[in-house]
């Protein structure tokens, strides 16, 4: 066991000077219009010959919006950072209305290794046409190579009104610091969840402020360093399952909520509900909860009572403010299916909350991929994903499942995969290229001879050889136990 570190740590909040919240400024409005126009032009250029009217109209629209911003602001700089897009330093908010356009623009920028795009006031339709055309012909080369190829082509085409820069490199120190923050948030979340469940079990009132703080921390982390945080969900500690599971469900739910365009405060509501979803288990006797063999009918009934027991338990948690009603709804509904089968069976008619549907998917995924008292061999993440998607009897909302797959990729983070190079890998991150969901970023952890390497090397499975073939392809997902791999070691 590691001793607590004595030094107090400072945590920097994720509120950004360029964040949302101060009203919809000109830049924010026009920035969104610019992204829409860019998205429209990218698609038009991809689908039709450049001489096509639709392409020309889309390019003219793009030019017009760009000029409008330039006329007012005297600068136009589009910068991508992580999953955020900034226009002239102002972060544009991702929501359901701009979801597709943001995703596409981000993936084109990433694919071409572009971090910053600047335009001068003289920018013309022809310049945009040249840029968009060359960004769509990247082939299979690495983003850094593509970036230089794009630059060369623009120069050859005489485009001087557009400037490009590579993404700002995060220093190793910054990366480590970010990872440390994520780990600390995760550890604090587990500790607070443990305290919460224990307090409820003992009939004490838990510390609500601490609970709020860790959920706020998770929301901040997801908004800023989603990959680190989601990676930590691979920690599926058998002994601490109930606690890590609640934290994992919270992380998955918040990450999914972010994809669905929820605001920061809505993500907080969702995170609170997700963290509390299994709180009813703190009213289930430990001897039943931890039983490894088959459950008797009576024991099963006791376990199946945890959703409604959760509602009663949540009345113990109040602080001095309102009871957590939204969390109560999620607690009672998270095992109800879309057709209201499942458990508990409601007496009065009800429509399931979308938060319950999100938490149900996150819960189903994390539970099935974890080792527990009564599930010593977990399912692989990919298997679970397919089951959630393809088996209607699971009763999951298909749109939420679809969004979840969009979040995690077909091979979710933490999946152990066998590559066609006879290497083993662990899925590290969803591929930033939206059309490459099946080609995640993988940490290769063994060579072709079976020698395990730690920490291993990150590879992008979308990378191709000069002949256009992919360097590596997943051929199967595997059970980490078979190879003696503890996935969480590669994320902590």
């Amino acid at each position: 066991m590691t001793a607590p570190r004595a030094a107090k740590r400072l945590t920097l909040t994720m509120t950004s000077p360029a964040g949302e919240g101060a009203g919809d400024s000109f830049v924010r409005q026009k920035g969104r219009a610019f992204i829409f126009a860019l998205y429209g032009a990218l698609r038009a250029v991809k689908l039709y010959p450049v001489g096509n009217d639709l392409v020309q109209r889309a390019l003219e629209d793009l030019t017009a919006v760009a000029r409008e911003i330039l006329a007012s602001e005297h600068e136009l700089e589009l910068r991508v950072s992580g999953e955020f897009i900034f226009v002239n330093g102002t972060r544009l908010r991702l929501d359901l209305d701009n979801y597709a356009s943001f995703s596409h623009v981000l993936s084109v920028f990433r694919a071409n290794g572009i971090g910053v795009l600047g335009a001068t006031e003289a920018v013309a339709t022809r310049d945009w046409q040249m840029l968009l055309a060359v960004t769509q012909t990247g082939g299979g080369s690495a983003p850094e190579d593509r970036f230089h190829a794009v630059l060369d082509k623009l120069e050859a085409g005489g485009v001087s009104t557009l400037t490009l820069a590579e993404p700002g490199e995060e220093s190793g120190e910054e990366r480590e610091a970010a990872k440390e923050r994520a780990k600390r948030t995760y550890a604090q979340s587990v500790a607070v969840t443990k305290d919460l469940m224990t307090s409820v079990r003992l009939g004490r009132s838990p510390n609500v402020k601490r609970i709020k703080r860790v959920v706020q921390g998770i929301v901040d982390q997801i908004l800023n360093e989603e990959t680190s945080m989601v990676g930590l969900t691979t920690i599926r500690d058998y002994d601490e399952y109930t606690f890590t599971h609640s934290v994992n469900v919270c992380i998955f739910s918040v990450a999914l909520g972010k994809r669905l365009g929820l605001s920061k405060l809505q993500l907080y509501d969702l995170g609170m509900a997700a963290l509390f979803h299994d709180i009813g288990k703190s009213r289930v006797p430990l001897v039943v909860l931890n039983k490894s063999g088959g459950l008797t009918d009576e024991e099963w009934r006791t376990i199946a009572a945890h959703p409604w027991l959760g509602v009663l338990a949540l009345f113990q948690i109040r602080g001095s403010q309102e009871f957590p009603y939204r969390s109560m709804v999620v607690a009672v509904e998270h095992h109800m299916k879309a057709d209201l089968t499942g458990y508990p069976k409601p007496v009065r008619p009800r429509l399931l909350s979308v938060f319950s549907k999100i938490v149900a998917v996150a819960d189903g995924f994390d539970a099935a991929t974890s080792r527990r008292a009564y599930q010593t061999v977990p399912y692989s993440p990919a298997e679970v994903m397919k089951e959630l998607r393809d088996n209607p009897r699971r009763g999951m909302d298909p749109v939420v499942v679809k969004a979840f797959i969009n979040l995690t990729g077909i091979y979710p983070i933490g999946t152990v995969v066998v590559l066609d190079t006879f290497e083993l890998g662990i899925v590290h991150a969803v591929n930033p290229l939206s059309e490459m969901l099946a080609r995640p970023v993988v940490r290769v952890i063994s060579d072709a001879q079976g020698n395990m390497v730690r920490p291993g090397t990150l590879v992008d499975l979308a990378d191709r050889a000069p002949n256009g073939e992919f360097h590596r392809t997943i051929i199967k997902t595997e059970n980490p136990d078979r190879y003696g791999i503890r996935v969480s070691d590669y994320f902590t």
Partner: protein
Amino acid sequence: MTVPHRPSSAATPAVRLEDLPFAPAPVEELLRVFGKAVRARQLYLPNNPVYRSALDSVRAAFAPIWRETDDLALTFTETDVRWFGHVALSEPTKAADSLPWTFFKDGVRELRVARGFEDQELVKLLDILQRVRKAAPEEDDLLTMLWEADFANLRYRYVDLGTESVAPLDGVAADVQPAAPGEVAQAVREVSEASRSGVVNMQDFDATLHFLDESELGYLRREIEREYASDLRQNVLAILLDIFESQEAPHVREEITEIIETMMLLMLASGELRGVAFLLSEVQAAVTRGANVTAQQRERLGELPDRLSAPEPLGQLLQSLDESADLPPQAALSAMITELRPAALETLFGWIGRLRNPAVRTLVEGAAERLAAGNLQELARLVQANESTVALEAMRRCGAMKTTAAVPAIARVLADGATPMRQAAVHALTAIGTPGAMQALERTIDDADRDVRMAAVRTLGASKHRGVFARLEQAVKGRKLRDADLTEKMAFFEAYGAMCGDGGIAYLDSLLNGKGMFGKRQDPELRACAAMALGRIDGKKAQAALQQSAGEKDIVVRNAVSRAMRGGGE
């Protein structure tokens, strides 16, 4: 109150002024006026000129700073606010109104203020500081409030006092043995061979399958809107009642009943009347449908509507509504009151006259009317309530609703009620207007109170209620009426005229035109009354009698005759 003061040189750590980016005076001035604004926010309402002026001062104090920098970083110790290590504000007392202590105690160690903060977010921060100073220990602290405020131009660093001692993650205890390289390689090759025969489902590689289309995005958008438009309390109440019905364990039902009782109070206190209405309407269903509900459980949960209908809780609710600035929608209030027991009517009627807020009175009156309409028996009972305001209101409503069932009760009021009650009773019976109501009024023309008598006689005359005629004739021909004032006399005579028909003409003619034993005519007032009564009788005979006095010299009589001939009333 701690008064902020400029730091003395002794308190300043070893920071040389020349090492600072610019002279500290503007920062010290900013903190000084900011402290004043914090206090102004505590003392005055947001629209108060003193507070507005304090805000203007803070905004003005930012100007010289923004001329030097775009970003102001302030750090906090228990007693100081520092800028680049220089103590820009010192408040030695660690009190609730100390600015450094307010930030420090909740873990805030640094604030970074960016240009533009003063436009929109200054007020937000002042509001937060006000809230945090008034907050109870178990309420949200400064960090939570700052987080929720989601500032764009304010960043902060903090230590998390609650969780800083948590051990960092260093992996969990090892319980997995790594496989030997040979084993790994062999397993991988086995898997690879097996998989090359087509294990991979190519459909999974179609990324487009996993993108949300427009209809799916629309669905999610609507779902999120629904999530935030839904009534969470009512939802949770439904859940609790579901559990009550489906779980028979006594301790569970008891816990739920306690929770529901608490929730009802909270909803009442916060004006969530729709939720209260839902609860009142559903508890009966829960105790009826629930399996094996004991008498005790039924009594405790099922009697919630009775308890809320009792005078004390309902009175408190009405008082709080009257004093509240934020009224519930009419539909919500009506829905809740409709779910109350009939016994609530007495309290409602008692309060209607006392309510000072006209909007609340309108709301309560509307709701009470609906409850009364469904409970006429109770309404009739309240006519004889001990509290006069209740009885008066009940009679008013009986009249408005033409509640015939209340006539006997109102008649009893006429018999033994106080004067205002008897007046209200006459009005109610008048409004009810049925033969039964008129019959109840008959005796009232002999009432001790002039107004009661007059109201009754006018009603009876207007309705030409024959049952009162004998009594009326007796009054008209009797001596007692001669002593009454002209208005009362006139009312009686007109009523008489409305009912007597030709049979009364001779008597009225004799009053108007006849002469006494010594050739003296009757008193002019009496003659005028007779003229008005004749005017109420159709036909030539009555007109002829009036015509005889058309040239009368007495102005009172002449006017009355003239009006009567024109068919006019009073």
